[in-house]
């Protein structure tokens, strides 16, 4: 049985033709069979990704007043971008978004790492504990948001009732109806929802840490913290980068928790980009402004995506060298 290596071009053309650095068209022709194989996927991606992106960018240059249909939109150039950047609310929402993303991502990562390290140790009931800790991640975000809304409720929330009952507070605390506490309260819910994801990723990463290195470190007199910091953590670098970037992208695009629990209020204090875009588009029908807003968000998330890919590449390289 003969085996063809992956370097050999399809279609039977000699490899030296590619090596000579012929034109793109020629190389495409040489690889025509490969392209045919991926063509269905490319067509699907063009329809479900490329066209919506193109349409959103196109729409961002138009005005869409509430009294007109979308097809009657009016070209206004970059005015929508100007409108967004001049809006005070945009900057407030941007600050919220960064606080939301950075704090949620960081907290979920740290909590996930802590849980992963705990679960990496053998103890009775570990499997049960693992299953319990995954629950927040697997239950419906909508259901979780409603439950937390009631837990936080400023009049008959469970947390407040317990605090009052224990005499810690003399009246129900105000979590989500207060501009100063609402974002932090929502971040707690978000972290609760996300940390199991980080835990699973990092727990998988921990499986790759070589035992002999940990034993060697122990023989060399390293304590638990030194072993973790100098042996375990460096091995988790790749999976940590991937986890943090995935969490960050998910948090930039997070919608459900905020929308259900507060709708972005009170007084825009919990609006983040994605909920604000939704409100502008569907509540106010400013499709053009919402599209421009989305383009800005798209560029930022794409930048994160770039770092994600680079991070993965670096991690693979690192993994390959070990």
């Amino acid at each position: 049985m003969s085996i063809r290596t992956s370097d050999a071009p399809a279609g039977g053309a000699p490899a030296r033709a590619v090596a000579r650095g012929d034109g793109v068209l020629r190389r495409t022709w040489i690889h025509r069979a490969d392209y045919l194989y991926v063509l269905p996927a490319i067509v699907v991606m063009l329809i479900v990704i490329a066209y919506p992106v193109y349409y959103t960018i196109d729409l961002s240059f138009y005005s869409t007043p509430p009294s007109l249909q979308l097809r009657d939109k009016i070209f206004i150039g970059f005015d929508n971008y100007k409108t967004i950047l001049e809006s005070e609310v945009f900057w407030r929402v941007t600050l919220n978004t960064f606080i939301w993303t950075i704090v949620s991502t960081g907290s979920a990562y740290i909590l996930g790492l802590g849980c992963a390290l705990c679960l990496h140790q053998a103890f009775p009931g570990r499997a049960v504990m693992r299953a319990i800790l995954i629950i927040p991640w697997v239950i419906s975000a909508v259901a979780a948001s409603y439950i937390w809304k009631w837990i936080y409720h400023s009049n008959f929330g469970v947390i407040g009732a317990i605090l009052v009952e224990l005499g810690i507070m003399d009246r129900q605390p105000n979590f989500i109806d207060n501009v100063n506490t609402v974002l932090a309260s929502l971040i707690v819910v978000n972290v609760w929802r996300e940390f199991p994801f980080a835990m699973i990723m990092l727990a998988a990463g921990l499986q790759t840490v070589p035992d002999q290195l940990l034993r060697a470190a122990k023989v060399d007199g390293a304590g638990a913290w030194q072993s973790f910091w100098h042996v375990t953590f460096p091995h988790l670098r790749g999976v940590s980068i991937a986890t943090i970037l995935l969490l960050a992208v998910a948090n930039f695009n997070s919608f459900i928790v905020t929308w259900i629990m507060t709708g972005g209020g009170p007084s825009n204090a919990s609006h983040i980009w994605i909920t604000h875009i939704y409100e502008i588009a569907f509540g106010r029908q400013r499709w053009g402004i919402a599209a421009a807003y989305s383009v800005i968000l798209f560029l930022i998330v794409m930048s994160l995506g770039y770092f994600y890919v680079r991070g993965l590449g670096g991690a693979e390289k690192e993994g390959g060298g070990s």
Partner: protein
Amino acid sequence: MSKDKFGCAVRRGVSMAAIAAALAVWGPASAQAPIDLSKWSPEYVRSIAGTQDYDTAADCGKVTPLDYRGRVTFWYQGAFEGDPDLLRQYYRDFFAEFRKTYPNIQLVDQALTYNDLLDKFRTALLGSAGPMVVRLQILGGVEFASKGYLQELKPEDIGLKTQDFWPGAMKSNTWKGKTYGVPTNNETMALIWNADLFKRAGLDPEKPPETWDDVVRYSKQIKEKTGVAGYGLVARKNAGNTPYRFMPQLWAYGGGAFDEASANPNYSQIEINSAASKRALQASYDMFVRDKSVPVSALTNQQADNQPLFLAGQLAMMISHPSDYDVMQDLKKKATGSDAQTAQNVIDNMRYGLIPKGPDGRRAVVFGGSNMHILKPEYVDGGKVDQPAAKALVCFWTSPEWSLKMAYAGSNPGNLNGFKTKWMKERLENIKFLDVTTSMLPYGVPFPTIPETPEIMNIIVPDMLQNALTGTMTVDQAAEDAAKKIKNVMSGNKL
């Protein structure tokens, strides 16, 4: 308040201001209406109830033959968590009866909540994936008519007369002189209070606050004396409940978004930052910030959140529908032990009264309701509208019988002939406090009939409230900010 006393109060209370407001809702066509609107009072409504019979199948059979074979898709605002079980039953009965009457019409219906319907409908229209028929809240029709999504549709197209409906409701279906829908129901809300809490706070348990300033005062007194929230303020954004409760207050003080509370509004002058509007906003501020006499959760509350608070005896006053009495009964069934006893005590002490007046004696309430519309084929999923099937459905729902039954507990029939049916008579006997809300109808003020109304009412007005109540802005700044936003909405593409 006893029924007789209440009737007298209503007769005394219909002042010149009320007549002016009534004209805005009833308009010049009221003289030709099937019932004499100039005689409107609880007694008059009782006197006409049960005086006429209607055969819905026969009437609609003249519009679309009963053996017609076709298909119709339909979206509507259905019952949600704040509605009584009774309403759910009537919805089930309606669809069963329609399918029985028109066995060859395939009806594909989809219920959506009040807050979701507009979003979903707008999105579907962008993709030409709308239903053939939609039942929208009263403030939605003009928006979609102005954009050209709706077919012209007037009561005469389904065998009824324009005069069969409240002129104010017909106005909400009118855009540039053309009619685009038929009203299904129209309603006004009332003030509900807990007489026991009033008594414990040292207030007359049978006397509701006469003015909005009294509401502020009562709310504070109740909070101080009982520790319970006084008034059920609602200020959530993107929720219809907020404007329905705040606009009556705004109008009573003499304010408004525009001049919508006047007899002949033209919506050209923004009034939300007027001195009168600021006084109304100040009243809410005083209750929430200064006196802390309303639920802390007001900023994220909808009316459905106030209902359990009220039933638990933790709220003394709120604005709502007559159906809240049934909702309380439904909720009570779910309570156990001492909670059930508390709930029963609250229900026994539940009272309904007219919505308070402003400082100048003006009383106002949102003239609410819903309308049915037929879409143009190009915006419908599949690109076709089965006209006879669509008209059969609109005819059925807006008939005197179903117009009444579908509004049995929480609203009033859009078709005025519904008041003459035997079911209205039965309803007057079964639905407690119905008199109060029908008595509020003359004070009803329709939302501005302009395409921008949903954004103004669901986003800008709640934003103004939240900005003031959270201290993000002063009352003055919040009102000025809202005026600026309305100006932006009306004039261009600014946020």
